[in-house]
């Protein structure tokens, strides 16, 4: 009941507040307020989706991510700074702390200006490697836009990203444990530093789809961090430009749509899984819910309720075809690993369940659901229960085992014989007692 209320409250909150599942306070860090207008469409888009935008310059004194140890903003969007660093309040450490506290970050880089060392050291912490040259850009001599970059070939034309793996839900109609490249460079692209005189083959850092133009990182606590290789892609100019690939037709870009999806994902509007009620009990009628202790060889039922957040509401979560939500029953190592099957569906969630027999081993076990997929927030549930041995009166009784009847008969015949003997003895007592006395005398 209380849980239902909580869910209701959650829905209300979501409806009133914003679309994001984790708050609406968005800080945009932008060095130059004049550049604000470059991205006006993006801002308008975000505001229409319910975000409260705050614009700050990295050098501003007022800029602080935390107040009294709590986050002031839910999300952070960093546009490429021209200066060397992001200032004293946005050191890599602060940014990591921000992520540690479930804040989400969209970091845009730009080919126009050199990447600051602060940012690249931050990225290295997260295992995202930039080209050693600070001002490297990706070029592609086959998929460039013939209209705007006929000479430099540094405006790349890309198809909408396909899905990363066949079993991954495609949010970008669109990518590794914590790190997933969303948009890879086409196979013909390579890293290139335009300032260098002679590009030599050895200098090339990475080519083709080794280059990730847009990468996303989801920390263990599901905080999201996205690196966008090119801030220019978010500019108004590219939202509605038309481009022409060499030898191709002239088409209009879908940057606006892509930007929307990208921000929606980063700021947790999509791909957020929520675990509702978890319950486990004996597979009998009216069994106690979530008991602390089971016995070995108990028939046990486990159920977990999962919902997914899609832009503005929770919907039942469906496991993609070919994938499954798994339950482990573990003590040191899994004793059971079972696929959870959808049992029933509520308006906002799907209940997955499994039924199994606890192993013939006592100990402290845990029900574990560990579901980590790219672009979905992590589900990592662990519920400890104790599995005890048979109590002294729970073993099969001797009379229930046919083999034991012989011994039982033996025992009772002894006792019966004893009783009969006692009776006969007492009956024969007087005469033989007298007899015995006579003998002793």
């Amino acid at each position, binding site marked *: 009941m209380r849980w239902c209320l909580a869910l209701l409250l959650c829905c209300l909150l979501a409806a009133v507040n914003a679309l994001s599942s984790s708050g609406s306070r968005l800080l945009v860090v932008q060095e130059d307020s004049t550049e604000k207008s470059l991205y006006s469409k993006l801002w308008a888009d975000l505001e229409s989706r319910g975000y409260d935008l705050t614009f700050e310059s990295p050098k501003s004194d007022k800029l602080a991510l935390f107040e009294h140890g709590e986050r002031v903003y839910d999300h952070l969007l960093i546009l490429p700074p021209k200066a060397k660093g992001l200032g004293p309040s946005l050191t890599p450490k602060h940014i990591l702390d921000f992520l540690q506290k479930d804040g989400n970050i969209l970091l845009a880089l730009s080919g126009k200006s050199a990447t600051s060392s602060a940012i690249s050291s931050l990225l290295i912490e997260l295992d995202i490697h930039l080209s050693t040259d600070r001002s490297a850009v990706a070029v592609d001599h086959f998929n460039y836009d013939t209209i705007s970059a006929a000479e430099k070939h540094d405006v790349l034309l890309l198809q909408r990203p396909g899905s990363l793996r066949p079993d991954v839900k495609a949010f970008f109609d669109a990518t590794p444990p914590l790190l997933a490249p969303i948009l890879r460079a086409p196979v013909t692209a390579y890293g290139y530093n335009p300032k260098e005189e002679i590009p030599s083959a050895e200098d090339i850092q990475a080519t083709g789809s080794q280059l990730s133009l847009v990468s996303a990182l989801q920390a*263990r606590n599901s905080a999201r961090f996205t690196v966008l290789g090119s801030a220019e892609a978010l500019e108004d100019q590219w939202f509605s430009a038309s481009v022409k690939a060499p030898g191709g037709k002239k088409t209009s870009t879908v940057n606006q749509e892509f930007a929307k999806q990208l921000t929606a994902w980063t700021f947790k509007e999509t791909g957020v899984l929520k675990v509702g009620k978890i319950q486990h009990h004996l597979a009998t009628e009216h069994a106690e819910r979530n008991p602390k202790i089971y016995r070995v060889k108990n028939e046990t039922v486990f159920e977990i309720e999962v919902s997914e957040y899609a832009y503005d509401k929770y919907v039942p979560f469906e496991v993609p075809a070919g994938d499954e939500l798994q339950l482990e029953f573990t*003590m*040191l190592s899994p004793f059971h690993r079972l696929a959870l099957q959808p049992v029933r569906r509520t308006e906002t969630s799907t209940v997955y369940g499994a039924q199994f027999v606890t192993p013939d081993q006592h100990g*402290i076990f845990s029900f574990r659901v560990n579901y980590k997929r790219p672009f979905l927030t992590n589900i990592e549930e662990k519920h400890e229960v104790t599995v005890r041995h048979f*109590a002294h009166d729970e073993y099969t009784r001797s009379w229930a085992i046919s083999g034991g009847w012989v011994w039982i008969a033996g025992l009772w015949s002894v006792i019966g014989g004893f009783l009969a003997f006692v009776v006969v003895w007492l009956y024969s007592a007087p005469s033989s007692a007298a007899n015995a006395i006579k003998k002793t005398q």
Partner: protein
Amino acid sequence: MAQSSLDALLKGSSGRNTRGLLRILILCTIAAAAVSSRLFSVIRFESIIHEFDPWFNFRATKYLVQNGFYSFWDWFDDRTWHPLGRVTGGTLYPGLMVTSGVIYHILRFLTIPVDIRNVCVLLAPGFSGLTALAMYLLTGEMAPSPSAGLLAAAFIGIVPGYISRSVAGSYDNEAIAIFLLVFTFFLWIKAIKNGSIMWGALTALFYGYMVSAWGGYVFITNLIPLHVFVLLCMGRYSSRMYISYTTWYALGTLGSMQIPFVGFLPIRNSDHMSALGVFGLIQLVAFADFIRSFLPGKQFQKLLTYMVFLTFGLAFTGLIALSATGVIAPWSGRFYSLWDTNYAKIHIPIIASVSEHQPTAWPAFFFDLNFLIWLFPAGVFVCFQKLKDEHVFVVIYSVLASYFAGVMVRLMLTLTPIVCVAAALALSCILDNFLVMSTPKGAAQAKANGNESKSLRSGRNPLVGIYSYFSKAVVTGSVTIYLLMFVAHCTWVTSNAYSSPSVVLASRLPDGSQFIIDDYREAYYWLRQNTPDNAKIMSWWDYGYQIGGMADRPTLVDNNTWNNTHIATVGKAMSSREEVSYPILRQHDVDYVLVVFGGLLGYSGDDLNKFLWMVRISEGIWPDEVSERAFFTARGEYRVDDQATPTMRNSLMYKLSYHNYQSLFPPGQAMDRVRGSKLPTETPQLNTLEEAFTSENWIIRIYKVKDLDNFGRDHSNAVAFDKGLKKKRAAKKRGPPILRTE
């Protein structure tokens, strides 16, 4: 003590009733003295449970009192041996807990509001009073004069060898087991004297109680058959023996099998085979005796020997066959270590690591028994003089117990009762001869009157006895002095050596005032109040029971060392590098690691000194991964200073012990006061754990195990980042991630 000799003085002149009353009074006084001398620790410190094992017993008793008998019987303890759990109800001797539970409920029923803790604390002294009583009865069976019984009661009341295990707060199985041991022996003597089924059955019942209370019941299981066997070999078979032994064996064995922990052991384990063999033998002998009643002739002596040899051979081959085929459980390790003191050291480090299992040092005998130890042979000699059935028992018991006490320190406890009996026999023999005033006087006077012409001295010579007042006075005086010294010694030993709870340490400041070191409880209460209810604590097994009892947190291993592999796992985690330990910690859901470090205070019982045992035990399971040799320097020294081997310095235990320790001292001055060595200037770098708590005197240090890094870095990098070190871009080739556990 003094009273008992007084009693001997009064004996001649008082009536029977008066003497009986006096005896009861003296026994009560002895019991009171026995109880009160055990209360030192309560007065010095407080009413607290001592040491290690008693904490578990205390916890189990609380469980029993709270949840009732049946759930105690089926208790599955999920707060120890995480994650295996322990079938506690089936793996403990419930006698102690049930006893105190019953006492508690009786007191409650009598509307005396008591705390279960106080029942537990005072149980051991209370039972020591009963032991004195049982001792009186037992010795009373041995000697005609009651003074021996009273002396024995007084001895057992205050002898340090017994006090060591029964001071107030030492709530251990031995607390009631010694009483049961003595009382069972008393009943056995009674049974074999009277040859009645009832005494035999009573012996069996108390034997059953003993089985439920202490693993040392095996001693009785072997001693009684041995007694019977020796008597048989001496040709002293009688129907009384048959009746008492067979009754005891049949009922006692069945009774002992009711205890879940013992179960089928009496049938399977070779420790119990001698009792079975003697049971079979006595059947044969009885049958032969039965036949003999119909067949006259002297040949039965021979017949008997034939049969003895035959059965012995049969039983022996049968035993060997069964042991070889594996029907009978293999001889348990503790049993082997009884015979070969080096066995444990070589094969089972876990047994050898317990200080109680070490061979006894010679001074310990004198320390624990004082002048009784040299009266002991005299007492045995007195027994040889009479050599009735019960005296044979004393002789066998003393020989066996002396041997066992020499092998294992803790078995000193089984030696103590018989030493008291023998010493009391010897001493009463002396006192009875020297303290008697009237009879010799009369005899001497009669002599003097009869032969007036001869001098007194020459007249006395042919008489056997001591009549000179001088020699009487000398002997009596010296015995009194010895007794007084004994009392003084016992009091001194009790107050100085055996009354420390070892949970609270006491030391003296330079000015002589007492200084209480309460780090253990400080740390345990910190755990209790600052960690989640089911935070798993990893520590070396010594502290498992205390953490369970005082901090009420689940532990990985504890003093019930039933699973050697699990202990070795903890040992491995402690003795390996962090990179190896961390996955182990993760796998076992460890939240906190607790180590005991005495370096600051000079407390020598700390984990670094036990460290080699951890290494040995884990080497026994993983010889490839842990090697004891690697912890010694090239010259074979165990060092912790800057000469220490890299393996030592990288081990988790070393790091946990010395983490931040150097910051207490001026640079380069850090000293370890236990090992007396100067430490390296740099504090060890700890990555996967962080310090959570350090007690006032640094005895207990608690560390929290870090979660996996949020961003998938390994911990050394994360720590380096937090310290503000920038990652070198050049150092690119990262190895495969090591810390993925799931």
